[in-house]
């Protein structure tokens, strides 16, 4: 029983974080049919912002909000610097500019801050635990689950009920038709980058909250996780990204629990093998989106 509760909480908190990461990536991909390789750096930006405002007397929640806003600004900057100037030209160009922007941000962190990990301020609650069904459970897992539920709910509301969300879904299916109905391309793309930044910012704080420090390469793992979750779930489907995130978390957690100590360091090899199996079974991912897959 204790084991089951612990397992479920682990899967849900890890899965919540993975799902938010994947959603931020797939949102932009759905509309532009281009992967934003600078996505991980949005998490890095949130981390360093938290580090930099750490010395101030502001309440922690305000600091966290500033970090999330900075991640959104970095998301918008990605659009303006890496995507907009070359968007219409070629896929290869955007691939390279988004890598370049990612490297630029990482190197800025190396140069102006430090190559070594820096601590970020975290409230007491991140290191406390509560007893749930007789199992000591870290509060940060509960916070992660709560944040994921809240953000996924908000996101679902946005995409289902608001005109902006409906327009974004339409743009992901058929951008030209959406534009012929008066939906402005630049606004939709910028909104996608801003929301992507918001998700990255929140998930960045939760992610960094696990280790307590931020380093220039912190974004690499989340980018990889998000990418794999999207590939499993289906690159064209928002629900797929969420499903992929939770499934990946389930696989990772199961391996954590079952692999022996010697094998645990090869966990990623096991995870990727399973991912390959899933893709052999469903090459387009688990969920098929409505998208035509056409780039505009």
């Amino acid at each position, binding site marked *: 029983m204790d084991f089951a509760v612990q397992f479920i909480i682990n899967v849900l908190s890890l899965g919540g974080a993975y799902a938010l990461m994947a959603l931020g990536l797939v949102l932009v991909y759905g509309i532009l049919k281009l992967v934003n390789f600078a996505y991980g750096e949005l998490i890095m930006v949130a981390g360093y912002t938290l580090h930099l405002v750490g010395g101030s007397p502001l309440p922690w929640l305000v600091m966290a909000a500033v970090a999330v806003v900075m991640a959104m600004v970095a998301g918008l900057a990605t659009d303006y610097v890496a995507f907009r100037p070359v968007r219409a030209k070629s896929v290869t160009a955007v691939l390279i500019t988004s890598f370049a922007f990612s490297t630029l941000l990482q190197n800025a962190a190396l140069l102006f801050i430090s190559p070594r990990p820096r601590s970020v301020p975290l409230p007491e609650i991140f290191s406390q635990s509560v007893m749930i069904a007789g199992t000591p459970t870290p509060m940060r897992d509960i916070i992660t689950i709560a944040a994921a539920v809240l953000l996924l709910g908000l996101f679902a509301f946005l995409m289902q009920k608001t005109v902006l969300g*409906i327009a974004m*879904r*339409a743009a992901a*299916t058929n951008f030209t038709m959406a534009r*012929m*109905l008066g939906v402005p391309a630049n606004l939709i793309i910028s909104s996608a980058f801003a929301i992507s930044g918001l998700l990255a910012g929140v998930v960045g704080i939760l992610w960094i909250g696990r280790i307590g420090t931020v380093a220039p390469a912190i974004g690499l793992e989340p980018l990889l996780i998000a990418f794999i979750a999207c590939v499993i779930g289906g690159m064209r489907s928002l629900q797929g990204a969420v499903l992929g995130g939770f499934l990946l978390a389930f696989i990772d957690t199961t391996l954590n629990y079952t692999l022996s100590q010697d094998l645990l360091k090869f966990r990623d090899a096991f995870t990727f093998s399973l991912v390959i199996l899933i893709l052999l079974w469903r090459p387009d991912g688990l969920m098929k989106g409505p998208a035509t897959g056409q780039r505009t």
Partner: protein
Amino acid sequence: MIDVKDLHVRYGAVHAVRGVSLSVADGELVTLLGANGAGKSSSILAIAGAIKASGGSVMLDGRDMTSANPEAMLRAGVATVPETRDVFPDLTVDQNLTLGAYARRRDRKSVAEDRARMFDMFPRLAERREQAGGTLSGGEQQMLVIARALMSRPRILLLDEPSLGLAPAIVDQIFQMIADLKAQKLTILLVEQNARKALQVADRAYVLRLGEVAGSGTAREIAASTDLDALYLGG
């Protein structure tokens, strides 16, 4: 209202539209006839701003809109229903209509009125309000995209092959609706392969052949002077 001069469209090496000139006056219903590949749809998409014209000009009430993007064309009053229909399959009928009114979304009251009007005009859509667009039949999808285009309160409607692939009974319904819209003084540029039906509702017609205007005149003149069956075959 709309004045197209010497329009050219190229797809790589293919020169699809070769100097098409046409005009549509206020309240007029003009039809663009021609065989498959005559350049009808390319002309429409170039006017709508969805593809780039490689030459020529598109004037709207004397304003040069040649290089305007599709959203600017819509805001200027040009609504387009492309041949591919392009219902958003995962959005509900209601949400598809909401998008049609995107440019005037802040005017909630009149958008709500128009939505009610569309449901009056197309009772089938009212029954399927909450259904995903992709689950509708071909005829219902055609009605939905026309209703969606009307939600923007366009000054001119570009209608590309509305009867394509539909059952004869539905085709009659669609043409009846086009006649109704004309009676309401909406300006329409209608592309059709079904030349006979199009000429019955149109004021004037242009015949395209291999990307060029091969003839133009009143609907009656064109009906009398053109071998309508040959239009299908590209003769």
